[in-house]
């Protein structure tokens, strides 16, 4: 077909080749290279069993979690444009999102509900993995990475709670940070370190802001990268041993590109 020939021609051109290192061709090798040679895709397995990407296999919980994380990053960056982490300004900035920023309330609600959803999805994802036995060898380490990601998610949620600087935020963080005082011996030190003082105030707001917008997201991105890379290295989404035997026959290996 003419259209197909044109596409082939574009894909064979030097410009295309200079951007996408893998060349044209429908061979298994080419398809595998397309994944492997791309910095973003190389974290994923080059080959996936077709039925492994069916909805019933994972309920897409990990992917959805990543989706909410991406929404949170994008809306979070936009929210940072309107927000000052200072005591006199924080609450007023949040109200201004509602009062004068175009679609500001939508932006804020999107961030807030995605955050709620992400926590929910993370738990659902972990249950699914747990009950499917997908944490077993050789994926024990990835399970641990997942636990770290759970903690990061919860900390992101917790630090974000203070930023509106309303009464709910103030008292929730007061109560929450007091929990850390219960740690034996060093409890009060941790409490002081977390808040930058003995009370929730300007320093605490600034610390939580930096944690929420810089430290924790960077950590999350790093661990997500490790998490995905390990999925590939540990043998894809699903190992042979944990599969029910009855479903074996129609199994065929397809290049990842075909999944789409």
């Amino acid at each position, binding site marked *: 077909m003419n259209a197909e020939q044109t596409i082939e021609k574009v894909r064979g051109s030097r410009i295309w080749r200079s951007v996408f290192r893998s060349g044209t061709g429908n061979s298994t090798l080419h398809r595998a290279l397309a994944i492997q040679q791309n910095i973003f895709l190389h974290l994923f397995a080059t080959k996936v069993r077709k039925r492994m990407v069916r909805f019933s296999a994972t309920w897409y919980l990990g992917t959805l979690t990543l989706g909410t994380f991406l929404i949170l990053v994008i809306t979070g960056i936009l929210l940072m444009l309107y927000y000052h982490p200072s005591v*006199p300004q924080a609450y007023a900035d949040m109200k201004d999102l509602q*009062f*004068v920023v175009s679609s500001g*309330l939508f932006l804020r609600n999107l961030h807030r509900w995605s955050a709620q959803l992400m926590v929910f999805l993370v738990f659902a994802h972990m249950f699914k993995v747990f009950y499917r036995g997908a944490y077993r060898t050789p994926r024990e380490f990835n399970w641990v990475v997942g636990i770290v990601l759970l903690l990061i998610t919860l900390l992101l949620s917790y630090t974000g709670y203070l930023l509106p600087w309303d009464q709910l935020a103030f008292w929730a963080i007061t109560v929450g940070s007091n929990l850390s005082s219960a740690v034996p011996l060093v409890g009060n030190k941790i409490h002081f370190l977390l808040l930058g003082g003995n009370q929730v105030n300007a320093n605490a707001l600034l610390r939580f802001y930096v944690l929420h917008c810089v430290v924790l997201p960077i950590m999350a991105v790093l661990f997500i990268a490790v998490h995905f890379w390990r999925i590939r290295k540990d043998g894809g989404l699903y190992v042979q041993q944990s599969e029910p035997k009855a479903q074996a026959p129609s199994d065929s290996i397809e290049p990842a590109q075909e999944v789409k």
Partner: protein
Amino acid sequence: MQRIKTILSSAWTALFGDPVRAFGVVSLVLLIALAIAPAKEHFSEWHRYQRQYLKLIHNRGDALSLQRRFQPGIHQIWLPNLGVVDRCTTCHLGLNEAGLADVHQQPFSKHPAIPHSLDGFGCVICHGGQGAATTVSEAHSSERAGEEPILPARYIESGCGQCHQDQLPGTPQLNLGRSMLRRYGCVHCHAITLPDGTKVVATDHPPSLAHIADKTTREWIFSWLKDPQAYSASTTMPDFKLSDTDASDISAYLVSTSTPLPGDNATLDVKSAMSADPSAGPSLYGESFCSSCHAVQNAAGNLVGGDLGPELTRIGNKAKPEWLKAWLQNPRTYDATTPMPHYRFTPQQIAILAGYLQGKSDSDYGANVHLDPGTAVQIAHGRKLIVELGCAACHEINGVQKPENFAPELSSIGSKPLAQILFLPGMEHALSSYIVTKIRQPRAFGTSVKMPQFTLTTAQTDALTTALLALTSRSRSMPDSLRVAEIQETNYQPAGHAGKLMTELACLSCHRINERGGDMAPDLSWEGSAIQQQWLVGFLKNPNTLRPALIRRMPRFNLSDNDNKELTDYILAVYQSPSIDPDFTLPAMNAAETVEHGRQLFYSKYACQACHIVDAKTDKGYIGPTLTQVGSRLTAAWVYAWLRNPQALRPGTIEPNQNLSDDDARALTAFLMSLKGPGRRGTKQ
């Protein structure tokens, strides 16, 4: 059931049957969801109000100019130095439009005339509420978020009080509230520091209870504590809602610790004088102008008299006769700082007046109260109660220290966050309603609340609330340039023997001198420049009134000639105005002609007779002082300077500044100085 199942399953297939269809449906739902957000903006409230406004002005005669001034979009007034962002003008579009004076439809009506520009001061500084909001409910009553709703209009004067620490003529409610904070003793328990760092000082004079047993009986103290208003409706003493036992124990403590003063129990044996003339008592009471300061309830139940001293309706129930006589002889023996003057009464006058006052009693008052002498346990319990209730915050009490910071400080009460307030069920979640309820029924907020019950009218509670609401943190943090300072009371004290005499006569209870003292009588700071010695001597001997419309008058103090001379000399020597030329003289030539010219100016050109009386037979002016003998009262220099610019000599006087020419002022002065009074009319100058 089966049908519903079929319908549902076919709907599922139709929507999500194959991946492409499912993708399409989900995308469509997402698109609609995303479209709602900008659509909501378009249909927002302020858009609607701006469309309404355009419709409103469309058919008006001045539509063109109004439309030209109208700007679509969100408007805001930003005051960076006050931290204020007001977007109220987004909907309140007609505030600055003089042409819309006839429009009464909110939010488009014109703002009433105020001395400030709206753009320079914004809205929330006075009206409260949330200025940054762009919806009505968020701006006016965002209670759900725990934010202060808009201030009810009846407390609006509190807005003025944030910058204006002085008294404004346009804010009577705020002025009343501020004076009540001092007069009702609020500041004895609640410290209030003004933005300039000065403390609000109480102006009431709670009596010392150190010698209370000399003055009254334990039974009276009991009845008084149980219900102060039953004895005196006008008292500022609040009701502490004490039980019989508590009131009895407190009275036991007070009586047991009271120390006697020599003289209080001495009897003056001049009883015979009383029976001589039954009208002698009332006439002495009247002559001494007791009612300028003390009120008495008349038959109709109305209080008649001043409020500087305690009400005397039932004084006979309270005061022991011996104490009353000692008090009338010299109040300063019992209470060194009393505002009551030391009248130089003769023993006979004392007996007459004391007898008359003793007669002012109510035989029913406290008739059933009989208390046995207090036991040690009762006395100890009484002391405990006195400490707990903070009685010593107001009264001097033997054996009990004056408590420091007894009640919460109120310096920033007007900015108390709603989140820190425990509201009663059903109460509006607003600071103003909290304050007003707390003043009206303090004990409704729990049985452990110590604040007593005051008896106040609605106007008084509103005034107090207004004054308290003005104590905002903004008033403390605003730039000094915006603040109008209060005129501070000085601690001026006249010096020397004459000064001691003036203290005894309590001149400053009524007169103001060098920014200290009362406002009942004229300011005497420059009296020495104003009056003639001979007149003052006579006036102190036998004061007559200068202003016919006034009920309150200067009392007679029965000064000895020596004291009188000393006082007069002191006033003339010390209270001199620097702006009065002591060598001022009137032109001697053509004296009669000038006087006649002045008379014409007085009656025709300036129509002074509208307020002043020169000829008692014809003139009817009751506003200003009578001038029939002004020539023997005032100095020519003062009259001349006064005519040139009255406000320069006494700021705030209602005498208009007529901008007289020098010639007119001199002629008028010559005319006025020729008025020497009935007995001396026509005497040469």
